[in-house]
């Protein structure tokens, strides 16, 4: 009795269901097949949007964590010129005000610190090129406060792009080492460029659905399509406070002496770590154009020069190490000399001639050192020079670093066979000379020079740069004796009062080197250097100060800078006064 009714009902329900289903299918086909492209176009951009997840570039910090370079988000101001042609309205204090494109441009220019016509010109140029132009750059890389002020103007055709940039909170402090970046975020110089692998971040991408009205992200729709990665932190061996001080005193004297360039280096004797490497003039990475192109890098690493008489202690070390001399060795240190091979040269000044080796260093006699140094064969001297680190780059391997030029001993001409002993006829960088004195201060063991402490990646992995090898250059006793002789120099040479710090002993040597005049001859202006170790009894720090083309044209120009740096090291690293164990060598025989 009831079975037929079931059947009928079933059929009706089925028919209705099929009809509805068919309707859906038809609509689906209408949307997905016949009008697919229209809807796709409509949905693209308005519903789903891709955002760049900027991988933040890592910071460069000093040995204490002081930030020398860090990432900063800046903003490019762009406009849609086709929209900008029309005025828009804005409500000010409940009143509707019409803002013309010219007025808007004036408002923008006020904050971007441009000429309003530059803004208008950018819009007009874009419209002249394409009447429907949707994109024109108004200003690049504006800071957060400018971006906020512009955003508050509510100009409907003004848009902003994120522009990751770089900031150097300490300005020119270590700017010569840190380097700088281009406006587009390309590393251009220094460690920024060389250590880009450590510092660079990787940008990621996020796709999310957004509401048509207001572009609000719909919850749960965010998908990271490409994960980004922040860059690592590069830690240097430099001490930013000391670096600033060294740069400041170097620049102050450089300016007073109308010097062309100056370099000051502080290296830690027991570790080979560079604590300060100053160049004058130097670059402020925040304002690269403020410094001429020749001084935007680290000439301390990249520009070798003839070191001059600061080479003499190394020559003395060679003679001592070979057993060919001692601090008391007498030598007839005449004013000038002509050797059998024809080589001839003279000293800068006349002095008494019956000098000991220590006296030769105190008087800085070229003739005296050449007579003692030539007791060691050219081949052995060449090998010592190599062991002192000359002729090859230091372990730092700074961008564009030079190893200087030392010709093989077989190629030494008659003159340079002798002049090399007082630092002429070959070139070294300031860093190489600092490293050579570090060797003397460290018992003859030359440690690899280091500038980079480590790179800490964003996941916390710490990578140390490959450590070079230490080289036992001369015997510990030789190194000790040479430092004692240099201590005698510091206490007895003509400039002793210019560098003396009561209560402290130093070991020093000066150098006045000729330099090329750029026309194949020597200039009348010298490269003057003062290099030394403090404290003399147990050397902790190497200090090297070098100037080119000073008014004084003597190492007297270096002395105040050397003394100021020594003072600062004493204060900053708490070196206790100590005048004990001073070895007094006779200067004459």
């Amino acid at each position, binding site marked *: 009795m009831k*079975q037929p009714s*079931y059947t009928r009902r*079933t059929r009706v329900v089925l028919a209705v269901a099929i009809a509805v289903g068919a309707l859906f299918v038809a609509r689906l086909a209408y949307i997905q097949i016949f009008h697919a492209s229209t809807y796709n176009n409509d949905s693209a951009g308005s519903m789903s949007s891709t955002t760049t997840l900027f991988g933040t570039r890592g910071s460069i910090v000093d040995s204490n964590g*002081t*930030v020398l370079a*860090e990432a*900063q*988000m800046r903003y490019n101001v762009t406009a849609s010129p086709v929209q900008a042609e029309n005025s828009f309205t804005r409500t000010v204090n409940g009143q509707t005000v019409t803002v013309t494109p010219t007025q808007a441009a004036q408002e923008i220019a006020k904050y971007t610190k441009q000429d309003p016509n530059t803004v208008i010109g950018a819009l007009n140029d874009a419209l002249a090129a394409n009447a429907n132009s949707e994109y024109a750059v108004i200003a690049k890389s504006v*800071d*957060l*406060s400018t971006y906020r002020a512009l955003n508050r103007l509510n100009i409907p055709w003004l848009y902003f792009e994120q522009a990751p940039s770089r*900031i*150097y*909170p*300490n*300005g*020119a*402090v270590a700017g010569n080492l840190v380097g700088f970046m281009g406006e587009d975020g390309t590393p251009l110089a220094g460690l920024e460029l060389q250590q880009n692998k450590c510092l660079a971040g990787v940008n990621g991408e996020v796709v999310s659905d957004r*509401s048509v009205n*207001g572009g*609000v*992200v*719909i*919850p*749960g729709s965010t998908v990271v399509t490409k994960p980004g990665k922040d860059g690592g932190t590069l830690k240097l061996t430099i001490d*930013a*406070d000391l670096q*600033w*001080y060294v*740069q*400041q*005193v170097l*620049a*102050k004297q450089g*300016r007073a002496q109308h010097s062309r360039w100056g370099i000051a280096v502080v290296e830690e004797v027991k570790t080979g770590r560079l604590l300060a490497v100053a160049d004058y003039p*130097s670059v*402020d990475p*925040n*304002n690269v154009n*403020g410094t001429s192109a020749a001084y935007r890098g680290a000439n301390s690493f990249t520009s070798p020069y003839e070191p001059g008489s600061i080479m003499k202690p190394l020559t003395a070390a060679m003679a001592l190490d070979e057993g060919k001399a001692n601090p008391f060795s007498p030598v007839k240190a005449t004013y000038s000399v002509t050797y059998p091979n024809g080589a001839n040269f003279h000293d800068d000044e006349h002095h008494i001639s019956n000098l000991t080796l220590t006296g030769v260093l105190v008087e800085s006699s070229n003739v005296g050192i050449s007579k003692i140094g030539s007791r060691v064969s050219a081949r052995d001297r060449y090998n010592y020079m190599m062991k002192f680190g000359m002729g090859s780059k230091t372990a730092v391997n700074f961008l564009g670093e030079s190893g200087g030029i030392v010709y093989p001993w077989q190629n030494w001409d008659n003159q340079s066979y002798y002049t090399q002993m007082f630092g002429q006829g070959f070139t070294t960088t300031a860093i190489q000379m600092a490293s050579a004195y570090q060797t003397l201060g460290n018992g003859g063991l030359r440690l690899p020079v280091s500038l980079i402490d480590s790179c800490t990646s964003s996941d916390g992995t710490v990578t140390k740069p490959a450590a070079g090898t230490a080289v036992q250059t001369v015997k510990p006793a030789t190194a000790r004796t040479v430092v004692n002789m240099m201590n005698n120099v510091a206490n007895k040479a003509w400039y002793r009062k210019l560098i003396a*710090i*009561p*209560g*402290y002993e130093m070991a020093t040597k000066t150098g006045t080197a000729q330099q090329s005049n750029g026309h194949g001859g020597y200039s009348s202006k010298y490269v003057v250097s003062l290099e030394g170790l403090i404290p003399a009894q147990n050397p902790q720090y190497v200090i090297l100060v070098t100037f080119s083309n000073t008014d004084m044209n003597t190492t007297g120009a270096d002395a105040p800078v050397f003394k*100021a740096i020594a*003072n*600062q090291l*004493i*204060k900053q690293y708490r070196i*206790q*006064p100590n005048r004990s164990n001073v070895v007094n060598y006779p200067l004459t025989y």
Partner: protein
Amino acid sequence: MSTAAQRTQAPWYAVPDVVRTSLRGIRGSLGAKRSRLAFVAVAVAGPLVIILLQLVLSIFSSSNAFEIDTLQTANKDLSRSYIAVNQRVSELSSPSHLARTAEAMGMVPSSTPAYLRLSDGNITGHPTAASSSSALMRGANATLVPNAQLAGAPRVSLAGKIPAVSVAGAPIVGGSVALPKQPSGSSSISTTK
């Protein structure tokens, strides 16, 4: 078609023919009617509840979306301010700015280091008062190590609320070393206005 065949072909929702199979009479029939009603009620109400719940949830979630967006924007804005302010702090604490500020307040770097040993009050080294000539940041020297980030940084002026410090003759007592008098020229340390 036989009844048996029809029964086997009955759809899954067909209620079994309890009248014919039940020997218990009316009671079973009433129960079956009730269960059928309950089934319909559940079948109708269930989807309704689900639709309503979904509606309520989506209203909540989409209204929250705007709130989340507002909060996220505020968060982003605040973290930008945080970074900007921190960067300003590191700019202002840069050594050149500190030195310039210190010199504007009449301080100069000491030129002769000395130590006071606390255990016995002995002075090691030879303390000498610094003179104004050890100033590093005077005039054009202030910008020798430039920092474009410091443009517009506050400069210390001694004409402010805190009274200026008199540099001359601050006596240091104790120890065995007599401290020389401050040179008379030292009171002329100029301040940056």
